[in-house]
């Protein structure tokens, strides 16, 4: 459909957080997007194409908002889009106001404001199935008459009402908005306008809705009493997380082994086909070892996001937020900080962008500065590599895996340090009282298989894409840095002269001096550019129990955390001498020895490295987004500095403390 025969229609989708707006947007446009179950998930404007009976219209998904009062950035953005004040965005021809039927009064407040903008509005009534299950009744025709705009009941999951919604949008597009609502026209002052709006809404709801008066305990409330209990709730939260981590380790073992064997077989196949030389080394030791080393963790990433999506979609994560909210407010964090912190468990970038919902600059900056401390999915391969190498198969009480406990400990460490940092910041550099915050607990729902699979597959694709692009490029560069310069025999073996080295061991006599002397690969690696860099920083990282090879991997991981795994994989492949048998990364780590022949990796070293990764700022993308969102180099550098300093200090304490306690 075209506006005035030329321009496509622009439709804006507006609604409260958690009203089902994003689900409806996905359903109407078919785009894959994150759908969550707690307030405030939609932070950015998203666009899609909506097929209106053969003609396409641009559908804009506005940020989730409670009003258009423009107290937060989200509200300001939405208000400007509706008013047509945003550059390169057409003023909407129609606004679809998404209204949660189970929270009519609250949701209609935004609708009442939308009516004042002179743009035709249609109300899309969501959660209608839940509303009907609660045995309430709604007269849609009556509600439409009271509001003065069309009302359509929709269900994105079953496609109910989608066709009708498209027809209504087509019919009212281009018309002059003539809503009956004009209550605020007579009201003087903001307070009077608010009262007028609520009066208008109350009348409309009373006229059209018949609530079920039978007193019955709602299952949701009963469950909430347990899940949000300060003792039982916390215990259940810990139990759920332990179960999730345990499942991630046990279920992912087989596919991970298969993937590892698969990459090993591909590497051997390449070696068989290609003649020995630089190309075979690059493909096998650089590309396959580097990218394959990261890709083997795909099953764990899939499982992690499967569980996160299920917990999110059922509504449990909102209860977890409620549990931690009291703790967060005690340290001075804004209630709205929970969503950015939760998002940061997947990736810090959407988490930092989600802080736009926090109005107060100081509260917002505090949240930005602590969000990267949440253990993002890029840390998962590092944790699981370390746990797989040194703690696999160990249990506590015979059934709780030590790996799951350690994983939970790493996630908890990130949260605890974040709260401590927030506590300090809110009392020093970013002093401000926390504003009151009302949290909405969404109803429990059966998780939508489609949504869960969509979330899981989106994350899996991102992981594979990242491995195939950035990590591939970094792996090749790192391999080159570890391969070059090719050492001359005299440089590699300074203690031997050419003629001495050429002595035939069988006869004890000098051999043919023209015979090329093979330099051990471990020696080549030591003399490579990366090796020299590693040795340069070795004195700094030695107190943490790390040798120069770990140092090289640490430096590389400042580009992206997973690169640690690919770098270690390349290092132990490149540094492997010809007579050494091929082995997995885990066994290579277990058997690795330093220049003096001592074992490099111990459980304590692995734990120290994990602690370092929990706290260190090793993500270029996060640095970039913090700079953009704070518009300040000072705060960005402060974040990088405090996180790296904290990581070093905590790792030092872990390693030296562990050694003082008798651990190796």
């Amino acid at each position, binding site marked *: 459909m075209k506006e005035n025969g030329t321009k496509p229609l622009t439709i804006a989708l507006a609604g409260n957080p958690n009203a089902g707006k994003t689900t409806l947007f996905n359903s109407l446009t078919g785009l894959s997007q994150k759908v969550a179950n707690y307030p405030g998930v939609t932070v*950015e*404007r998203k666009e899609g194409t909506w097929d209106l009976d053969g003609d396409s219209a641009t559908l804009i998904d506005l940020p989730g908002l409670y009003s258009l009062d423009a107290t937060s*950035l989200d509200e*300001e*953005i939405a208000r*400007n889009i509706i008013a047509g004040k*945003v550059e390169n965005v057409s003023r909407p021809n129609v606004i679809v106001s998404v209204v949660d039927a189970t929270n009519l009064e609250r949701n209609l407040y935004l609708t009442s404001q939308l009516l004042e903008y002179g743009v035709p509005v249609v109300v899309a009534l969501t959660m209608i199935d839940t509303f009907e299950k609660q045995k309430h009744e709604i007269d849609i025709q009556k509600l439409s008459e009271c509001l003065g705009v069309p009302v359509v009941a929709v269900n994105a999951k079953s496609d109910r009402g989608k066709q009708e919604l498209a027809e209504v949008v087509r019919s009212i597009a281009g018309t002059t908005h003539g809503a009956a609502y004009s209550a605020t026209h007579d009201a003087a002052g903001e307070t009077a306008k608010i009262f007028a709006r609520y009066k208008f809404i109350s009348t409309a709801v009373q006229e059209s809705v018949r609530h079920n008066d039978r007193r019955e305990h709602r299952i949701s409330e009963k469950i909430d009493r347990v899940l949000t209990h300060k003792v039982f709730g916390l215990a259940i939260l810990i139990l759920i997380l332990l179960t999730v981590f345990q499942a991630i380790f046990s279920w992912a073992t087989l596919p991970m082994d298969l993937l590892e064997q698969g990459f090993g077989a591909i590497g051997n196949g390449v070696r068989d086909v290609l*003649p020995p*030389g*630089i*190309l*075979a080394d*690059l493909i096998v030791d650089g590309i396959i070892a580097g990218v394959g080393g990261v890709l083997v963790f795909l099953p764990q990433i899939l499982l992690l996001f499967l569980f996160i999506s299920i917990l999110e979609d059922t509504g449990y994560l909102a209860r977890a937020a409620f549990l931690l909210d009291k703790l967060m407010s005690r340290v001075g964090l804004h209630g709205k900080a929970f969503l950015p912190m939760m998002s940061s468990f997947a*990736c810090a*970038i*959407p988490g930092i*962008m989600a802080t*736009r919902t926090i109005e107060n600059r100081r509260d917002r900056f505090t949240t930005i500065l602590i969000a990267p401390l949440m253990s993002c999915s890029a840390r998962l391969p590092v944790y699981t590599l370390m746990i797989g190498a040194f703690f696999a198969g160990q249990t506590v009480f015979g059934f709780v895996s030590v790996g799951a406990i350690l994983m939970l400990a790493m996630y908890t460490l990130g949260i605890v340090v974040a709260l401590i940092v927030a506590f300090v910041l809110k009392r020093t550099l970013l002093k401000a009282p926390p504003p009151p915050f009302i949290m909405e607990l969404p109803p429990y729902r059966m998780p939508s298989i489609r949504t869960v699979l969509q979330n899981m597959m*989106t*994350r899996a*694709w*991102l992981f594979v*894409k*990242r491995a195939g*692009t*950035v990590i*591939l*490029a*970094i792996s*090749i*560069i790192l391999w*080159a840095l570890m391969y070059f310069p090719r050492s001359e025999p005299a440089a590699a073996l300074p203690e031997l002269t050419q003629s001495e080295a050429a002595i035939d061991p069988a006869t004890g006599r000098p051999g043919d001096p023209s015979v090329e002397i093979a330099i051990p690969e471990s020696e080549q690696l030591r003399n490579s550019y990366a090796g020299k860099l590693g040795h340069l920083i070795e004195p700094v990282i030695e107190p943490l129990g790390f040798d120069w090879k770990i140092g090289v991997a640490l430096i590389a991981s400042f580009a*992206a955390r997973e690169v640690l795994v690919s770098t270690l994989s390349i290092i132990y492949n490149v540094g492997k001498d010809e007579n050494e048998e091929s082995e997995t990364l885990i066994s290579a780590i277990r058997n690795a020895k330093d220049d003096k022949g001592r074992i490099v990796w111990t459980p304590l070293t692995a734990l120290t490295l994990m602690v370092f990764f929990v706290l260190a700022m090793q*993500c*270029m*993308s996060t*640095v*970039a*987004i913090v*700079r*953009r*969102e704070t*518009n300040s180099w000072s705060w960005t550098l402060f974040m990088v500095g405090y996180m790296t300093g904290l990581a070093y200090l905590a790792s030092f304490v872990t390693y030296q403390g562990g050694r003082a306690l008798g651990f190796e």
Partner: protein
Amino acid sequence: MMEAQNIIAGSIILIAVAYATVIALRKGRALSPKSKVGCSDDCGCSSKSKSVKAVL
């Protein structure tokens, strides 16, 4: 044979360096609050997103 191997390996390394440079430059540009370029394609987060100021 070794010549060909060297050329192919060298080309692969150069392409990787060029790609990494492009990514680094894009990240550099994304550091600016006025930037309209998404900074996190590789991360997959909001590659099409604009900064708040750009939207406003």
